[in-house]
């Protein structure tokens, strides 16, 4: 904590509630008490603080599983000897690792052990009168004596307005700046509160992501999400009921392809999606404790497929996954209802298409010259095997390609007549957006704690605590003794003290 150790003059001049250094005592409880006081000592806290910083360093350099599991995977593939070793040491899960947890838990135990007695002492000090005048005032960092009489005490009471002053006979004690220690305690207590807020969020929170094509929507239930990340003590019943429909997604780009704005125009409601709202980056939709964020976007070409019988077997937008900043996207189309054979297609969607050496590419992320380039297959898609398949990958083991696997490029409105009958039409282009919905019930507590942290910190760093004593020694003539001390910013206190002495000698 920010109050320094003090060389003790006597109890009155010990301007701190910091506990004294622990001493080993005998008996059964002796070693235990010694251990506890050792743990709650400043030196231990300092050591744990540095350990905490050191332990965070690998988390700042190595990829972390909770943030980016794919990069951890590729790191492990690249570093076959060091990788597994680091993994055994939990280096890819630093912030949930046993050793990181041990450090911060010890630190917080040490903190609480230090805070409780200090809070008790401070509460006592807040109610107590400033301590009696020390025997020898001249030994204090600031002191002065002159010939004068008891009138000085009345003048001192006037000059020390805003101080806590107590007069005992011919002596006067004054103290100021109690808010320093109050701020110090509030700061450290708020740190504990913050930890509680984080824990509540980690245990009871929920995070789900879902991909939505224009014209479709989702409702806030566990089943609607493509990917969920619930806390350990999360209850599905705590999800705020609402539904959301994506009406229109718009992105604008600078001429060089840099994104300027993303805007998802949605409608939402508790039961029916009727209220319009713009979900943008930095502008989420809040419904109760649930917040909906726009986290990604892409293109979904609208495709109509007819089989050999002429029946329409697929008539919907197909979401393609962007692979480059210019939105060259990969697409997979599966048509399990086609007869007599199932159909499958794989290829690329390019919003602003360029062709180079027979390969298609995209030169701009906006929709300028969209082309859907596909290779087609017929046969068995392998969907009945009972093994779950991703909608974004095509298993071609039981499929035969059309045209020896040659790709067909389609512009909007164009139709590919499949060999042997049937067709695929690229009807038009829609866009999709991915939304993330989060509920964090610990958030508000964390925010309150954050306010306490900043407020407490400012008080504890900028308020100066200081004491002043005045004594009139009777005699002929009588003498006035003034002394004072401050542990914080002694230079400024000297000036303040000099000014006080000037006013008392007037």
């Amino acid at each position, binding site marked *: *904590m*920010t*109050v*320094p*150790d003090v060389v003790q003059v006597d109890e009155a001049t010990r301007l701190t509630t910091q506990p004294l250094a622990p001493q080993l005592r005998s008996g059964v409880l002796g070693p235990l008490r010694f251990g506890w006081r050792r743990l709650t000592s*400043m*030196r231990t*806290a*300092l050591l744990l*603080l*540095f350990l*905490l*910083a050191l332990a*965070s*360093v690998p*988390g*700042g*350099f190595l*990829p*972390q599983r*909770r*943030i*980016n599991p794919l*990069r951890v995977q590729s790191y492990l593939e690249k570093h076959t000897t060091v990788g597994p070793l680091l993994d055994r040491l939990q280096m890819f899960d*630093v*912030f949930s690792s046993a050793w990181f947890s041990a450090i911060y838990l010890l630190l917080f135990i040490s903190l609480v052990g230090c805070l409780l007695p200090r809070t008790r002492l401070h509460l006592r000090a807040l109610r107590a009168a400033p301590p009696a005048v020390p025997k020898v005032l001249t030994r204090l960092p600031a002191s002065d004596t002159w010939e004068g009489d008891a009138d000085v005490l009345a003048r001192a009471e006037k000059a020390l307005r805003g101080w806590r002053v107590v007069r005992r006979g011919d002596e006067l004690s004054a103290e100021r700046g109690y808010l320093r220690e109050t701020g110090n305690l509030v700061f450290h207590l708020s740190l504990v509160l913050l930890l509680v807020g*984080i824990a509540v969020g980690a245990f009871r929170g929920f*995070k789900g992501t879902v991909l939505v094509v224009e014209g479709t929507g989702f409702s806030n239930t566990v089943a609607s999400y493509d990917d969920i990340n619930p806390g350990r003590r999360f209850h599905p019943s705590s999800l705020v009921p609402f539904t959301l429909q994506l009406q229109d997604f718009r992105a604008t780009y*600078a001429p060089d392809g*840099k*994104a*300027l*704005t*993303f805007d998802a125009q949605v409608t939402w409601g508790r039961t029916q999606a009727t209220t319009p709202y713009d979900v*943008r*980056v*930095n*502008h*989420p939709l809040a419904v109760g404790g649930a*917040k909906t*964020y726009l*986290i990604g976007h892409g293109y979904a070409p609208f495709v109509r497929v007819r089989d050999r019988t002429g029946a329409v077997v697929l008539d919907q937008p197909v979401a393609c996954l962007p692979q480059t900043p210019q939105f060259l996207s990969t697409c997979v189309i599966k048509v399990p209802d086609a007869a007599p054979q199932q159909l499958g297609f794989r290829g690329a969607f390019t919003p602003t298409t360029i062709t180079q050496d027979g390969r298609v590419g995209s030169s701009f992320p906006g929709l300028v010259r969209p082309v859907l380039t596909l290779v087609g297959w017929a046969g068995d898609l392998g969907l009945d095997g009972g093994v779950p398949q991703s909608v974004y990958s095509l298993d071609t083991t039981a499929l035969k390609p059309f045209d020896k696997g040659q790709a067909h490029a389609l512009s909007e409105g164009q139709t590919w007549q499949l060999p042997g009958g049937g067709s695929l039409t690229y009807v038009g282009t829609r866009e999709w957006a991915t939304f*993330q919905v*989060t509920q*964090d019930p610990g*958030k508000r507590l*964390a*925010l309150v704690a*954050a306010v306490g*942290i*900043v407020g407490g*910190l*400012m008080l504890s*760093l*900028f308020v100066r605590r200081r004491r002043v004593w005045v004594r009139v020694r009777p005699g002929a003539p009588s003498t006035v003794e003034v002394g004072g001390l401050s542990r914080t910013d002694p*230079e400024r206190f000297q000036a303040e003290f000099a000014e006080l002495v000037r006013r008392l000698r007037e």
Partner: protein
Amino acid sequence: MPDKGLGQLGDGLLFTAVVVYALAMLGFAGEQASRKARQSVTAVRDSTQVLVGSGGPSVTLPAETVTSLNPSRAGRFALALTGLGWLVHLSSITARGFAAHRVPWGNMYEFSSCVAFVAVTAFLVLVARGYVERSLGAFVMLPVVLYLGLAATKLYTAAGPLVPALNSYWIKIHVAAAVTASGAFQLSGVVALLYLLRSRYDELTAAERPTRFPVSLGAQLPAAPVLDRVSYVVIAFAFPVWTFAIIAGAIWAEAAWGRYWGWDPKETWSFITWVLYAGYLHARATAGWKGRKAAWVAVAAACALIVDYYVVNIFVVGLHSYA
């Protein structure tokens, strides 16, 4: 659309500011050199007088050699140059803001310029408030000039619009706080290093052992307690600002990414920096850690801050990669 002419004006002004700062640095160095020369001249004169006293022939030193270089005039001139450079620097930042129609701290180049600006401001405030002598300027302006030079050559970005993720009023609050704290922290890091030099110099001279470069620079530095106090005052100012910057960043992250803290590399290094400065404040108040050990903590914390800003942005993949 960004205004090209204004953007170029801003770049030109920054270049001018660097040149003026460099001249100021030379001025401060000149003040120190001439003061040292004057001291040795005085020393020679004193020893001559001893010789005179012992009955040798009387020698009078020509007055010109003593007064040809006026240290206090050089120092005052250097301080005025620093003030002028500060004004030019301020207009450079303003021109950038108007050129891009936004806050002038939207990318690494602009951020670096602002950090250096805060460091110079903090130095000028410290001199004006009497916390420290202006002669420290030589040691403060050197890193400022190097820092700005590196920023202008390695990180240069023409004035342009922000990426959507940065397009929020939080950029005014979060980044302004981060810039202010970083500028002050970097200044305190330099002062802590100087404190380490000075206290090592004091230790060696007390033991009557010779000092070599860079410890010999200690002779020209303010007293060790002064440097220790300045570094503390600056950190005590910057630490709550840094805390606020992290919290504002967390609130912004909650609005932009859906969580207030996620151990993104930038967040992790901000946390490490915060913990180290918290450690410094505690260390300075703990017996056995006061003085040099605490100063080393301040230096380590300033290094963590550099990692947080430059190493993370350039070498580590994370959510803050754009800035």
